[in-house]
């Protein structure tokens, strides 16, 4: 299945871009997505092992099971205002 990954702020800077498509087996979790990303070369390997995540704009946890077409966002620590 295809997951759209989005990166913001420091993570986008690390990655060198703010969006990529990730291909994962069915029933993959957010944790699986993070592991798959961190095995890549380049900035992705420098991503933290645990990150704040949102799926389809809702905060969620690493155990969340992804669906095809989901938007998975990686959020650096928040500092609004």
């Amino acid at each position, binding site marked *: 299945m295809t997951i759209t990954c*989005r990166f*913001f*702020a*420091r993570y986008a*800077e690390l990655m060198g871009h703010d969006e990529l498509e990730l291909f994962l087996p069915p029933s993959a979790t957010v944790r699986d997505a993070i592991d798959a990303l961190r095995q890549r070369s380049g900035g992705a390997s420098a991503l933290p092992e645990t990150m704040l995540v*949102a799926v389809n*704009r809702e905060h969620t946890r690493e155990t969340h099971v992804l669906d095809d077409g989901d938007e998975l*966002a990686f*959020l*650096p*620590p*928040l*500092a*609004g*205002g």
Partner: protein
Amino acid sequence: MALVGPEPIDIGSLIDEVSSLERGGTVVFIGSVRRGPEDGPVAAIEYSAYEEMAEQEFGRILTVARDRWPAAGLAARHRLGTLPTGTPSIAVAASAPHRADAFEAARWVIEEAKRHLPIWKREQFDDGTRSWREA
């Protein structure tokens, strides 16, 4: 009306949005880009957001606040982009029949926004260097 976006924050129109004849007390909070002794030589802050989610989360914060203070009028904005020191980045207006509620509602909304909006800051210093500021 977008709660999050690049437009300058118009305090007057925020006040107009929450005003009504029954609401005698209005509280406005304005957060601006600061350059104090603790801050270093900050020239500007770049605000970036997960815009669709920030818009949704800010809307939810206001919905919860309207539920808690049903007689209140509430409005808010968070500005994005590169904002020089002194520029307002966030504003919340709350009006209510009695001032205690207006103060409490405004305070609650700003605290929730600071804690929950997916918005990030990168400081730009006088010497041109930049650094992410994380809470």
